[in-house]
């Protein structure tokens, strides 16, 4: 019941770095991957920028048997899961039956795969729809495929809470560790950069327009006007501390110490948004006070009203300029449910290396009394980090990660 959920493996597939160290080096160097979309011709759409993963060839990483039946986001997720287990030094085949599960978040499933099959259906007819369509696009596909690839038969799950889901998946992994599971591969990888996915995202009304990659996604900036989407995310190996100790785990990045999720009230209710409460309750769940938090990885919506709500939640809890705040997702774009697990990976690396990655592009608006880390990474001892994520539809999620010996 009181098992401690450690993070012992990190698998990162990010626009500015394939693999953990490549991503971290790029992030500390402030290298952004946001650019004009290449996966389809974006000319006729009002938004034309994204954080694409370039140089990923699934054939180099995965058996050809898997390729026809998987969307790009699943291919990325399978590789991320492979890397996380390798990083953890776990050979899943050696684990006892039912000792390990997979818990992922999803945002829009394998949407590009789905677009191809919808096109086949409506342009040619029902018999042109692939035998793989029944699962290749659906939200559960990454958990299913990862569990099959590694023989993980323990408790698995999939949550969808828009862009907050990645933290909810890690919280569920923490819960399963506490209930007795030894290892959970958890996190999220998303990718919906296809024209059908793009049109659906445009309808959401939060995408930045224009062609200037350096001035498009500017959270907390005076010019904040929406976000740039990206593809990728992170999968983490969450492991019972006793299990990690017994096998002599090579990496212990930290502990998942506290979590809370809230929903915003119905629009027009006049009630306060739920982000501040998520922060407070996550700290309470971790059993720590605000003074113990060394850095906040912000959700960074780059919608003025949402930036204000987040900045206020941070200043109310930590005081004006009371804690360093950063948003390295300004270099990748928002990776939907993959964004927050990637932030958790970055937070754990901040703890490991004693350095806070920067937010690029934004100059913080004076209206927000937050200490935004901009321009260059900031060396600082980091023992505890708070990661925030919000989703359209009112989802708020907050996760506290701490150094394992704290």
């Amino acid at each position: 019941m009181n098992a401690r959920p450690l993070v012992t493996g990190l698998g990162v597939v990010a626009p500015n770095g394939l693999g953990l160290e490549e991503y971290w080096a790029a992030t500390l160097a402030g290298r952004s991957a946001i650019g004009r979309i290449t996966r389809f011709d974006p000319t006729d759409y009002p938004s034309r920028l994204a954080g694409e993963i370039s140089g990923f060839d699934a054939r180099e990483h995965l058996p050809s048997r898997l390729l026809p039946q998987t969307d790009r986001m699943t291919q990325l997720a399978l590789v991320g899961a492979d890397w996380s287990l390798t990083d953890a030094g776990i050979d899943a085949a050696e684990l006892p039956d039912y000792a390990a599960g997979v818990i992922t978040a999803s945002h829009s499933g394998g949407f590009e795969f789905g677009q191809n099959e919808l096109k086949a259906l409506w342009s040619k007819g029902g018999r042109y729809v692939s035998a793989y369509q029944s699962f290749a696009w659906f939200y559960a596909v990454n958990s299913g495929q990862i569990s099959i690839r590694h023989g993980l038969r323990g408790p698995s799950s999939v949550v969808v809470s828009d862009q907050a889901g990645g933290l909810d998946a890690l919280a569920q992994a923490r819960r399963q560790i506490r209930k007795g599971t030894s290892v959970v591969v958890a996190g999220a990888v998303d990718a919906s950069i296809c024209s059908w996915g793009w049109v659906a995202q445009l309808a959401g009304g939060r995408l930045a327009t224009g062609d200037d990659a350096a001035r498009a996604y500017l959270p907390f900036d005076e010019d904040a006007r929406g976000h740039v989407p990206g593809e990728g995310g992170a999968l983490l190996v969450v492991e019972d501390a006793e299990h990690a100790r017994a096998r002599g785990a090579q990496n212990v990045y930290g502990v998942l110490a506290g979590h809370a999720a809230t929903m915003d009230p119905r629009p027009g209710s006049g009630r306060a948004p739920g982000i501040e409460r998520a922060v407070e309750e996550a700290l309470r769940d971790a059993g720590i006070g605000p003074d113990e938090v060394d850095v906040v990885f912000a959700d960074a919506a780059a919608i003025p009203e949402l930036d204000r709500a987040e900045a206020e939640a941070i200043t109310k809890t930590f005081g004006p300029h009371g804690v360093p705040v950063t948003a390295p997702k300004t270099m990748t774009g928002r990776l939907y449910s993959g964004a927050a697990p990637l932030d958790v990976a970055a937070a754990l690396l901040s703890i490991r290396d004693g350095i806070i990655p920067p937010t690029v592009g934004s100059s913080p608006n004076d209206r927000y009394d937050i200490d935004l880390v901009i321009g260059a990474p900031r060396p600082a001892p980091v023992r505890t980090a708070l990661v925030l994520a919000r989703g359209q539809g009112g989802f708020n999620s907050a996760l506290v990660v701490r150094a394992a010996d704290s």
Partner: protein
Amino acid sequence: MSAAGGRRVVITGVGVTAPGGIGVKDFWQLLADGRTATRRISFFDPSSFRSQIAAEADFDAELSGLTPQEIRRMDRAAQFAVVTAREAVADSGLDFAAVDPHRVGVTIGSAVGATTGLDQEYRAVSDGGRLDLVDHEYAVPHLYNYLVPSSFATEVAWAVGAEGPGTVVSTGCTSGLDSVGYATDLIRDGAADVVVAGASDAPISPITVACFDAIKATTARNDDPEHASRPFDASRTGFVLGEGAAVFVLEELESARRRGAHIYAEVAGYATRSNAFHMTGLRPDGAEMAEAIRVALDEARLGPEDIDYINAHGSGTKQNDRHETAAFKRSLGEHAYRTPVSSIKSMVGHSLGAIGSIEIAASVLAMEHSVVPPTANLHTPDPECDLDYVPLTARDWRTDTVLSVGSGFGGFQSAVVLARPDRSAR
């Protein structure tokens, strides 16, 4: 780990929207009568498809109390979820206005989200599949809500005034069980005191029919729609697609007792395991489902002999019905032969992510009425399915403890144990 000693979770409100039964009362009547709601698809012309049958719900959004704006912005599955949640809330007798909204959570299961809405809108923006680069000028403003099915949880939260944790659980065809399991954990862990939990899917649209055609998972018994869903019968040839929702009010036991709530059942145990075998296939031995059942019983502190009724997944595919029969024998031993087992999919079809919650609703109603619903259309059992599947006619049967199981694409195998909260511990 178990409920005992910690916070226990009970069902105090039930809502159902199902084929042949809009609302709990009609739904139960359908099951108790052993009638089937499967028919030739009427939502679109199915004649070009291999399987042309579905269990469709005669759902009228306006009559169900949705406003024109709600109807406009919600996919059919979201509409089901909201209407069904309202029924559950009313049934619970809980005054939601008097509960701290921060302590109320929402979990909605859905396997395929707003597939029907996406299918329709894709046709428009692609001009009938002609455009590779689809045209945003033809997109409806609420298309984003279709893109991401967590909009279902949002709509339910707005409808009931919940501001606690909210999510959609999407584990394929076990979503409806896993959503209730997830909600139970939220209450046990103290993250919420009340959770409006359930599942909804409305998948009867061309893309879904086509994708199951492609793997021949649905039956093509098109000449006899009323008798097409035949779980455990030797002549079964696949499942019949369905739609619907079931939603529950889950509460912490002590507070439910304090307010004198009607308690349908305790969610006494829940577990899920994965077969790690195949995205659509099942290992014949049922080992992972059996393991989920064992762990769920353990959590409930009950033994195999305590199970009075098994609400089966019973999809009516060759593979499934043998798989779970093996799982029941493996987990319950001899008691499997003594326990009535039935599949309501014979009557209401297979509504993918929703069905797990609809089957929990059937299970608590079986407890309520001491009647076990039958497996319709079961005339000649498959010799490899040799348990008591309650053929054709409902049975009067004292039901204090129910096991409800599910199995889904992706390899998910889940089990929920429902029990009367005042049962004596083993």
